[in-house]
Each structure stands twice: as structure tokens, then as C-alpha cells.
């Protein structure tokens, strides 16, 4: 490390990233309300993919940044239909194996953006890589007929991680799910690219996957996207001072999703909703604490035994956060938590 690096590290200790006001208190509150841990393992994709809808409600909203990110979260059910943003995706990932790797290709389109994700898995634990090795990753080109689609710089993580030994200290397995580990995979790599969408040809899009330097065409894949169908959900809403929240419950009562009504009034909109104390109520009278899926959807699932009929879902508390524009600068309001709601949603 040279003197410049040492000086910068010294400056880093003095000139730190400021924390948002109340950040530490909010983290403490979250830590005090951690959900029950999922004893059944980590379900990355528990439902048929076609049932998942990507709902981008940002269209027409002037809120930026956080609101746009939040509104791009995934919702099952009616969210996408209401949003007016068209959503397509491959019904099932394409999978193939080559040279000891298992590849999985997925693609989706939200509005005018197509995203392509390529994941690869190996049952081998990769050795440490030398600094001189070329970068991992792939270049991708997407075609609609003869037209090459414009590429966006959507900085998708490129690289792989490997699990040398699950018993070893310091292994990171944040990508590999238990199901993937059970399949014997020890390494996963991810790469992806976004494209500016054009109308899909009847035969679908054509994807060219090249080596990292773009020099060699490795695979040519047809990508045919289909509009997704809405999961049949029961919808019910409740209005609070901070805004209106809609709850979606699946017909079998084992899935709950919540989303805020993002109606913009006076440069402000409800942007975030987080539920506490969610329980699924069985016909036997047993209450099953909800567990949040770890796939980033924010969806709550029920882990009641298969034979148990779920009759209702109860939400104990909701934390709502609004965003607003202050002289053109986006700010977030202090979250409001509504306790003791006893919001019971009958199933079906």
C-alpha cells in the first residue's frame, strides 16, 4: 500500500458516509421484530414462475429513485394488471449442460426493458483464481429478426462464488439455496444484460452468447416471452392516514402479498409497506406464524401442514412509509406503524 492509499484510508475514517436520520433506530426496531426462522429451508422459487408477475407501478409517477425501485418489486396477482405495464417472461428457464456446468437462462420483459439472466452451476468447488485470469462473464446480443437490440448498462453482478467446504469457516452461500446445495452444486455464477425492447417476432428473440471478450460465439438461444397470467387472488384493501394498502391472498390461503396504493398527491405517495405479526389461521384453530420468502419479493408464506385448511390470514401491524418531493429532492417521511390492527382476511 502506497502513501496515497494510506492517506485515503485515514481520510475514510474521518470523512465517512453519513447515515440517514433514524437509521440505527429503524434497524434496531427491525431486529426486535425478526420473523420466525424458516425451519423448512430456503425456498427460492416455490411457485410456478408463470404465476409470478412483475408489477411496475411507477408508470406515470413523478417520484424517482426509491419509489421507482420499490415499485419495481415483484407482486403476484393483480398488481401488474392494474399498473398498465405489460409484463412478459419465459414460462420456464432454458437449461443445458456443458463441460461440467449446468446453465440456466431466464428472460423477462417489463415495459420497454428486456432482461436476460444466465446462471451457471457446477458441482465442483473452483480453485482460487489467479489475478492474471481473464474476467468471468459473457457478452450477450439480442436480436429481433435481423435487428440487434440496444444494450443497456444494467450492472448485473458478474462472477461466481464457490463453496469450498460447507464445514469450513468463512464460506459464503448467500446465492446457493439449500435446494441447490442438495443437488450437489458448490459453485454458482451469474451474468446478465438488459436490452431496450422492440416488438417480439413471431418466432421469438434470438440471443447470442459470446465469451467475455466477445470473440467467440458460444451459444445461440431462442427466447420466446409470453404474457404472464394473474394468479387468482383475493384482494382486499384498507385505508390508513398514511395511505391505502391492498392485501392479496391466494385462493388456498397460503400466500400473502401486500402493496401500497402509489397514488401521488401533493408530490407525495405511499411507497413502502411492511407487515408485522402475520399469522395464517387454520381450520383447526391453529395459528401459523408467517414466514417471508427470501427471494426479495416480500411475500409471506404459510408453513402449515399440507392437510390443514387455511381459513384466514391475520395481519397484526403494518409499517408504512411515504415518499415526497421537497423542492425537487426526493425525501422519505418518517415511517408510521399501525399496531393492533387485527386485520383478518378470510380466505376464498
Amino acid at each position, binding site marked *: 500500500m502506497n502513501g*496515497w492509499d494510506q492517506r*485515503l484510508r485515514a481520510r475514510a475514517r474521518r470523512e465517512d458516509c453519513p447515515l440517514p436520520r433514524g437509521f440505527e433506530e429503524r*434497524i434496531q426496531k427491525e431486529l426486535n421484530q425478526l420473523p420466525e426462522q424458516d425451519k423448512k429451508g430456503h425456498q427460492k422459487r416455490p411457485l410456478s414462475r408463470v404465476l409470478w408477475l412483475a408489477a411496475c407501478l411507477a408508470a406515470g409517477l413523478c417520484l424517482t429513485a*426509491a419509489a421507482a425501485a420499490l415499485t*419495481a418489486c415483484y407482486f403476484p396477482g393483480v398488481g401488474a394488471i392494474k399498473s398498465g405495464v405489460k409484463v412478459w417472461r419465459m414460462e420456464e428457464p432454458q437449461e443445458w449442460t456443458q463441460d461440467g456446468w449446468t446453465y440456466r437462462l431466464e428472460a423477462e420483459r417489463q415495459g420497454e426493458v428486456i432482461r436476460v439472466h444466465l446462471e451457471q452451476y457446477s458441482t465442483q468447488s473452483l480453485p482460487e483464481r489467479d489475478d492474471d*485470469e481473464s474476467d468471468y462473464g459473457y457478452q450477450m446480443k439480442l436480436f429481433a429478426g435481423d435487428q440487434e437490440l440496444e444494450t443497456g*448498462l444494467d450492472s448485473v453482478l458478474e462472477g461466481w462464488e464457490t463453496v469450498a467446504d460447507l464445514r469450513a469457516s468463512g464460506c459464503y452461500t*448467500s446465492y446457493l439455496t439449500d435446494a441447490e446445495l442438495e443437488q450437489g452444486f458448490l459453485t454458482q455464477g451469474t451474468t446478465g444484460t438488459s436490452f431496450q425492447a422492440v416488438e417480439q417476432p413471431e418466432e421469438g428473440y434470438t440471443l447470442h452468447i459470446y465469451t467475455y471478450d466477445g470473440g467467440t460465439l458460444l451459444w445461440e438461444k431462442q427466447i420466446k416471452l409470453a404474457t404472464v397470467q394473474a394468479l387468482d387472488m383475493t384482494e382486499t384493501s384498507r385505508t390508513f392516514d398514511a395511505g391505502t394498502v391492498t392485501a392479496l391472498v391466494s385462493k388456498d390461503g397460503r400466500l400473502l402479498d401486500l402493496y401500497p396504493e402509489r397514488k401521488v398527491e401533493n408530490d407525495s405517495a405511499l411507497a413502502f409497506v411492511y407487515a408485522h405479526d402475520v399469522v395464517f389461521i387454520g381450520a383447526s384453530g391453529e395459528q401459523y406464524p408467517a414466514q417471508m420468502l427470501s427471494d*426479495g419479493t416480500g411475500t409471506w408464506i404459510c408453513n402449515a401442514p399440507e392437510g390443514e385448511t387455511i381459513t384466514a390470514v391475520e395481519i397484526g401491524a403494518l409499517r408504512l412509509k411515504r415518499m415526497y418531493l421537497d423542492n425537487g429532492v*426526493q425525501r422519505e417521511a418518517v415511517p408510521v406503524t399501525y399496531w393492533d390492527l387485527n386485520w383478518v382476511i378470510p380466505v376464498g
Partner: protein
Amino acid sequence: MATIELAGIQSAQEQFAALVTQHSRSMFRAARAVLDCDADAEDAVSEAVLLAWKNWGRLRSGDAARAWLLKITVNCAYGYRRKSARVVYTDTVEQLAGGIEDPPVAHLWEAVLRLPEDQRAVVTLYYYEDLPVKKIARILGVAQGTVKSRLSRARQNLRELLREEEE
């Protein structure tokens, strides 16, 4: 169950809470380096806390706890970026990068935020977290050479932004 042993703390939830409390600033800093506003970064940290809690049993050593939390946080932050509808096209990249026409800044973090996104995370982990290149590569899921090249470009940009001479 993770084998972290913290004096006087018994339950898994208490152990986890103590760990997150200890590293929450680092988690926010890492998320903020990837995302473009505080609110997004805080939401990514919040998601990372939940994800880490769900995967708590996978952490095999307290020695790796900080890097493990940072990796999950960075992954969540990248997930936010990936899921967001915001796409940056190539013709706007130069405007985002810290260019020579940027006015100098006096505060290091302000300079970091002006770096291109891929350099911000590397700089944050290297200078603010004092992590070695090898560990940064694991956290970001890229090759060590990539970390080095990003650091090299970041140094050049920081030197211009801070108007300092590199030794």
C-alpha cells in the same frame, strides 16, 4: 446455528442482532455505494438483515461475519438495481462518471459518490472497510484482477476529484 460466541449473549436472535448492530454502518455504506440514494440503500440493508437472518445457520464462523453481511448487503443492493426499471444507457455513462470537468470536492465520501458505480463499491470496501483485494473479490463476485483494475481507475478519478497528487 452460527458458532459466533459473544459474551453474555445466548439466543440466536440476540447474537444476530448484536452482529448487525456492530456492522450496520458498514452495511449501509456498502449498499449506498451501489445504490443512488439513502432510501434505496436503507431498504437494501433492511432486506439484507432479513435475508441474513434467514440464512443465519449457514454462517460457520464469526470471523467471516462482517464479510458475510457485506456480501449479502451488496447482493441485495445489486438486486434492487436489477429489479428497478432504471436502465442506464451507454450514451449517459460519461455524465455519471467522475469526469475531469467535475469540480473538486473536499469530502472523500462525496468524491466516492461521484465515481462510476462499479468503482464505488470497490473503493468503499477497500478504503472504508480495510478489506484486502481477495476478500473484496469474493464479496462482489468478481475476479481479483477486476477489483484491481477498478481500484486503479478509481484512484485516478479520486485524484482528480480531490485534486491530490498520488505518490
